[in-house]
């Protein structure tokens, strides 16, 4: 868990806090979030009971475009894309089919995609958006908190923005002012103003 800049678990029960630190570390590792989350503070009080997780997110990579997937070469009556990174190939084929029509797209071999047609603008083709890597990350973060938190804490309030997230859960109803105060307090413990 060295990848996190700050990682603390706070609880009135010291042994419980240690166990929860291990649980959260395992969950973040399982969901591949160690490099996404930068700071994480967790507070569990089984007496109330309440579970609070607040954290900050690292800058996520931007939109993947056709130029990131391979080289585009415009020839007479067609454009040839030589695939360099196969990771987004299925999304690329789908986007190209949607843009140019399925009958104009051909993939003669694993690393070549051909778009046929007159007057294809190479620059324009390169700039087409293929995928958003940050898609699903926010959902994964909340999922990680959900399954790291004690089971049975079904009443929850959560929020994610581009830079930070919070997750508060309890067995009982959560008054809004309590949630706000707790979240603010825990963010300030991490040195992050809300």
């Amino acid at each position, binding site marked *: 868990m060295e990848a996190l800049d700050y990682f603390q678990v706070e609880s009135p029960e010291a*042994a*419980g806090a240690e*166990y929860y630190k291990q*649980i959260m570390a395992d969950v973040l590792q399982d969901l591949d979030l160690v490099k996404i989350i930068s700071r994480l503070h967790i507070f569990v009080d089984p007496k109330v009971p309440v579970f609070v997780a607040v954290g900050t997110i690292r800058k996520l990579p931007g939109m993947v475009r056709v130029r990131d997937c391979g080289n585009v070469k415009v020839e007479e009556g067609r454009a040839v894309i030589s695939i360099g990174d196969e990771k987004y190939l299925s999304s690329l084929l789908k986007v190209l089919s949607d843009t140019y029509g399925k009958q104009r797209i051909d993939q003669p071999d694993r690393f070549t995609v051909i778009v046929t047609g007159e007057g294809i603008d190479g620059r324009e083709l390169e700039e087409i958006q293929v995928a958003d890597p940050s898609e699903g990350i926010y959902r994964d973060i909340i999922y990680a908190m959900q399954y790291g938190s*004690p*089971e*049975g804490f079904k009443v929850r309030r959560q929020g994610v923005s581009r830079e930070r997230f919070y997750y508060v859960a309890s*067995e009982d109803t959560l008054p809004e002012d309590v949630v706000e105060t707790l979240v603010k307090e825990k963010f300030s413990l991490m040195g992050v103003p809300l």
Partner: protein
Amino acid sequence: MILEPVTYTGGVFKHEQMVEFIEDLGGYIIQRHVIANEVVLQALVPKEDIEQMRVLAKALMGTVTASPLVGTEIAVVSPSLEIHHLPHSTCDVAEYLRRFGAKTNVVGLARGFGKRIANLNVEERDVINEHDLAVYVLGNFEECIHHKFGTLAKGIHVPIVLTGGPSKEALMKCTETPVQGYVGGLGRFMHRTKKPEEIAKLEELAAEVARVLDVRREEIAKDPLSTMPPKLMDVIVEKMEPLEEVTSPTPVTVQMTGIRVKLPYELYATQIRKLEIEDGILIGDICEVLPCRMRNYIVVRIKPYSETKIIV
């Protein structure tokens, strides 16, 4: 004759010799697994013949190990079947106890999670009570265990071994009604138990379960059963042909005071009651044949000597 629970592991080649040897000694084979070229026999063998068995095992290139939990059925009770508790730690515990010969069943409660909202329904209570012992695999906070354990253990009359994150002393302190066994430092975790200290905890649990079951065996010995459960198993397996079509790994599961037969109660209960054990004594004379809470199976409970005045 004192029967010792053991596991024989060896090759398929000539393993029939071992099977016959155990049967000739008057022992019982509780379970036989054939996995590719390997055979695992869980058996009860007369104590004085164990050394002879080891000699034969050596000749067959196999090994004989003591398995204190052979012939017992244990419920591993988990607060739920959610990702929070499965596969770790509940399955790790269930799997490890199997290595000592126990037949373990995971009982995932419908609403066993939470501190205030945890509860145990009647069906769950009855299913747990059909086992020899229940291992409660609870979480990491004393506060929660203190609140919920009373509710989860309500109406359970089989011995309980409680495991949880807090230390053994803390667990003892936070349960209002004491239970038969405690293992601390084994609470909720999200990774496979691989480290030596984690394996040591599972060893500690197996030892605690064996200790609690020994106490139970001593209690049973004060008023012995009218027949031995493995003997009853042999009679039923031999005489009930429909069992050959049951695909379950253990069509007849041996427990400490009875057996569970995996056949429909409505169709076969009467037939089982009428089976003869020995010298005209029928199963119905010395056992209660009851409907099981697990599916529509049959539970056969052996009555003690004080009730029947018969020992076969």
